[in-house]
């Protein structure tokens, strides 16, 4: 008898299918199925205890367009996203340029700068809420001690609650983007700068002609990330401002939260949430096309 060990051998396809099957089951079971029910809810009137769902066609979607609070929250979201994107891009570029210099205590400085990103959105929101408090906030305390103010200031007021929220949120995500840009900066060969200096190109010229082209991709990534993070976050609003004072910082995500989980207007809330998803998807497609083009052009 031949001494051949018969082992059960899987073909490539069988192994691949075996390995991928759990993922597909999970994707359909815990994401696609729930989202499909959510889509159906958005076309229905949904009541809880006892559960009742009645198809209502386009009613919810039609109502959105006559809802002044929806327009308000859409504008607040747009303002919030624009501010986060602007602050994040500017600041992370600055931090990346700084970290790219030769520094003493480099490791320590890097770790401290990375710290806000290591914190949760949750801690970010509460830290800033405390920091800006008009009763016992540290920012007021410092300004007071320095003699710059006589009375404590109410920072997170009707006019500027969105701005402060944008600052707090940017604080949280800037380190991530700064490290993306730093990775881009570190690919620039030192000789290019030397050559430019010899050719008599000034610092501004060196920045636009050498630095920018090398970090264009990282800047784009920052734009994408900060847009998505800011457009989809609800945590920072719930925990830092509660949409207020009044409704001054009610973003679209917070408005959905209120409609669904405070007024229990489930079908309507689902409809607005699908509108948000549609906006995000359109942005995603735009960015994706843009990124792959730039990626190839690199």
């Amino acid at each position, binding site marked *: 008898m031949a001494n051949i060990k018969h082992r*059960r051998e899987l*073909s490539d*396809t069988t*192994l*691949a*299918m*075996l*390995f*991928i099957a*759990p*993922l*597909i089951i*999970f*994707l359909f079971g*815990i*994401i696609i199925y729930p989202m499909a*029910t*959510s889509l159906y*809810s958005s076309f229905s009137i949904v009541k*809880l*205890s006892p559960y009742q769902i009645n198809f209502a066609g386009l009613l919810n979607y039609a109502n959105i367009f006559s809802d002044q609070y929806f327009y308000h929250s859409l504008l607040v979201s747009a303002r919030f996203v624009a501010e986060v994107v602007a602050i994040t891009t500017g600041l992370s570029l600055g931090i990346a340029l700084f970290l790219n210099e030769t520094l003493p205590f480099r490791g320590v400085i890097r*770790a*401290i700068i990375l*710290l*806000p*990103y290591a*914190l*949760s*959105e*949750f*801690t970010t929101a*509460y*830290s800033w809420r*405390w*920091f800006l408090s008009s*009763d*016992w906030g*540290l920012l007021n*305390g410092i300004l*007071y*001690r320095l003699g710059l103010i006589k009375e404590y200031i109410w920072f997170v007021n009707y006019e500027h609650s969105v701005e402060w929220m944008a600052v*707090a949120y940017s*604080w949280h995500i800037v380190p991530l983007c700064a490290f993306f840009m730093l*990775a881009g900066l570190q690919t620039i060969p030192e000789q290019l700068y030397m050559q430019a200096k010899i050719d008599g190109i000034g610092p501004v010229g060196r920045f636009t002609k050498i630095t920018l082209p090398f970090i264009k991709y990282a800047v784009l*990534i920052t734009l*994408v*990330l900060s847009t998505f*993070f800011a457009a989809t976050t609800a945590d920072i609003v*719930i*925990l830092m401002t509660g949409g207020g004072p009044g409704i001054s910082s009610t973003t679209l*995500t917070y408005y*959905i*939260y209120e409609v*669904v*989980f405070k007024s229990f207007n*489930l079908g309507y809330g*689902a409809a607005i*949430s699908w509108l948000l*998803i549609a906006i995000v*998807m359109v942005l995603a497609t735009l960015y994706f096309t843009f990124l792959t083009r730039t990626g190839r052009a690199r």
Partner: protein
Amino acid sequence: MKKKLVLIVVAIALILWSVLPLYYILIAAFMWETDVVSRPPQIFPTNPTFSNILRVLGFPAPGITGEMLRPAGYPVVEGLTNSAIVASTVTLIAMAVSVPAGYVLGRYNIPRRNALLMLILGTRTLPPISIVIPYFIMYKTIGLLGTHLGLIIAHLSLIIPLITWILMGFFATLPRELEKQARIDGFTRMGAFVRIVLPVASSGIATCAIIAFLTSWNEFIMAWILTTGSKAQTLPTVLATMFTQNIGLSIFAVANFLATFPAILIAITLQRHITRLRIVDPLTQVI
């Protein structure tokens, strides 16, 4: 010389920017309530105490005048336990699903691969507030509201696509010859994966496990909606409830400290490994 001075000033400004907002809520955990609300606030605690921490953890402790105070009586320890249960279960399941899937997506050419990738990417862009709506309605009708299982399932919907995507990129960067050599050495395809690929990939897999754990540990909105006030509520949920109840600031600061500290520790250890994963892809939306 002038440049050096500028760099020092910038360094100090950046350190203040990173630390100041967090600073007060951290030291308030070790301060007496009257000191926390004093005006102007103390930059350094003049009269530090461990009483708040002891009382939050469920022990009686002396107050500022020396009399014994009862434990604070908030379910902080319960929240910590729940957070640990949920986050570790989520990590185990997510890794069991994502490691094999990430391996195949990163190294095999399977039919409809692109469609599957677009699906994973699409789910990554869903706002958490949108995913939690159907879960809330479903759980309300089938009684999964306020249970560990319910929150675990919801967290998996966020974490499996994220981890699969990162692992796919990671497996794709490993040398092509790994399996070829293993097959020549007489391993089956399964054997090559278990005995050769997994050990080589272990550091990347460990990093992804930490990312999965942290994401679940830090997650707020789903936990807040699906577990508030129940026996399964996680630490962030307990804290948010405490905050709405107008409790003492120093007590709240302690709870916040407990929620933040493990995460910071893990993140610092993680920092060293994260570059190795090369998660610089824009659409991964890391951590």
